């Protein structure tokens, strides 16, 4: 029994290490091929459209409501000691530093990351990837790199949109609904919000973009076991991406601010 336990634990450790190594290798090769000519721009733009433009609606809705609920929640807190003017600051700082990048990344993970894993997994299961290799086409360069590059560029764009609509949502609730002094709301926000807050949020978003795309591509690329395997890969990619994003968020925040 003890031997079994040790076997299990060691098996899990080895599995985790293999996954980590696989993801790392996928990251390096994906980035490596991004700097090798010929750069397949049309593939990249296609992925950008899929990851960026098509996620924009979801991101705008989540961002707006996040900002609105932030305003609502912080208003009840600040009202207790008469500092309602700081609601704007709270909304802006929370959105730009934390919620904008993280929520956007999680939404993109759910929407585009899962799709990437499913797509690549299906290609693997239906042996299309093998066909590419047979045709002497690098599957990493054709399938993975465009997705990683597209995520890297689109996540910050989506994040800045999310920041903005979040602040607008907070303004709507705070000023229009709860009747906070608009001057105080705006001035305190612009006063305490630094440009670095926004930039660091965007840097975080770019990192999250790489994480989610690499994890999704890895999970999809090494799918095994038919249609069931595709489903499993998709689920795993979303879970691992989301957890990795939240862990990386903490690390990046502690490094940046």
């Amino acid at each position, binding site marked *: 029994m003890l031997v079994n336990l040790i076997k299990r634990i060691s098996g899990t450790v080895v599995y985790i290490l293999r996954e980590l190594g696989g993801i790392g290798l996928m990251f390096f090769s994906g980035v490596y091929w991004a700097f090798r000519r010929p750069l397949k721009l*049309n593939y990249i*733009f*296609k992925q*950008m*459209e899929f990851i*960026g*433009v098509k996620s*924009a609606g979801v991101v705008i809705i989540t961002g707006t409501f996040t900002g609105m609920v932030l305003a609502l929640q912080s208003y009840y807190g600040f009202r207790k*000691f008469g*500092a309602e003017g*700081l609601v704007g600051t709270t909304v802006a700082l929370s959105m730009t530093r934390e919620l904008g990048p993280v929520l956007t990344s999680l939404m993109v993970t759910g929407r585009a990351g899962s799709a990437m894993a499913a797509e690549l997994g299906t290609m693997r299961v239906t042996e299309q990837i093998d066909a590419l290799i047979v045709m002497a086409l690098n599957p990493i360069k054709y399938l993975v790199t465009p997705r990683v590059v597209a995520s890297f*560029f*689109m996540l*910050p*764009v*989506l994040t*800045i*949109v999310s*920041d*903005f609509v979040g602040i607008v949502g907070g303004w709507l609730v705070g000023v229009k609904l709860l009747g906070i002094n608009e001057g105080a709301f705006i001035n305190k926000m*612009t006063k305490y*919000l*630094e*440009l670095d807050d*926004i930039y660091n949020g*965007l840097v975080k978003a770019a990192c999250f973009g790489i994480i989610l795309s690499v994890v999704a591509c890895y999970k999809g690329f090494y799918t095994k076991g038919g249609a069931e395997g595709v489903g499993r890969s998709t689920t795993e990619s979303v879970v691992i991406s989301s957890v990795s994003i939240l862990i990386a968020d903490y690390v990046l925040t502690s490094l940046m601010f």
Partner: protein
Amino acid sequence: MKQGRLSPEFKVGILVLIGFIILFYMSIRIGKFGVLSDKGYDLMVYLDNANGLDTKSPVLIAGVEVGRIRSVKLDNFKALVRFSVKEGVQIPSDSIIAVRTQGVLGDKYLEILPGKEKKMLSSGEKMSNVLTSPSFDEIFTQVGTAAKKFGDTIEEFQGILGEKEKAGIKKSIDNIQTITGEFKDIIKDNKNSINSVIANADDTMKGLKKIVTDVESGKGSLGMLIKDEKLYNDAKDTMASLKSISSDIEQGKGSLGKLVKDDSLYNDAKDTVKNLKDITDGVKKGEGTLGKLAKDDSLYVETEKAMKKLQKGADGISEMTPITILGTIFGLMF
């Protein structure tokens, strides 16, 4: 072929453009682009405590932001704060600079209180007039020390006070209470008398005041005494005369002078006394008539005899009184 016209590049381009516009707009609103604040000039100030002051902390004049802090450095154990001032804002050289706190978050900023000097500060100059206000830490430290001392005093006091002393103090307080109560009663009972006493005192004071005023103005004897110089002059003259008399006496002038200074009178007196002594000696020894009179009792005996005879004679006379009266009448008639 709608799909064809809206190519992926176009859509992505629109999204990226929107992203850049938002980013640009937010950056402008936050207003921390370095381009604008480069116009202007820098000033420096040494502070004892730059706690809470940070790069980009605002510099205000009358509540209006005129610049921002560029750097806070340690220089010779003082904080050297370098801050920029907007172009067009001129600061008199005798202006005072102060560290102030703002808002519930306790943000620190620099406040410049403009002076009246005509000379304006130019780029790179150091401001020297710093208004130091005690920080909360210092205030709390002082309050803490004071509170501790107070506590110690109370403790000492408690140490001094045993049960006995406490009882004593209680008793004293009771006594004081009783006394004040009685005092109150007394005052109550004698309210009218006290009032009249006060009124009298008032009158007395008024009278005194009048007297003092009179004396002041030289009215009345006392006033004269104090104010009039005549008496003084008289006294002075008298003293002068006395002085001249005493000097005369000293020099042996006049009778009194002679009496005091000339010893002939003394000698005469001495001789007289001597003679008198001789006489009394003579008398003592029975010399001379007086001596005999004093010493010899024969005279006394003789006298006594004579007196007795006289007595007898007088008795006889009293028996013959009527005759005597007749004799007297006859004597008168003739």
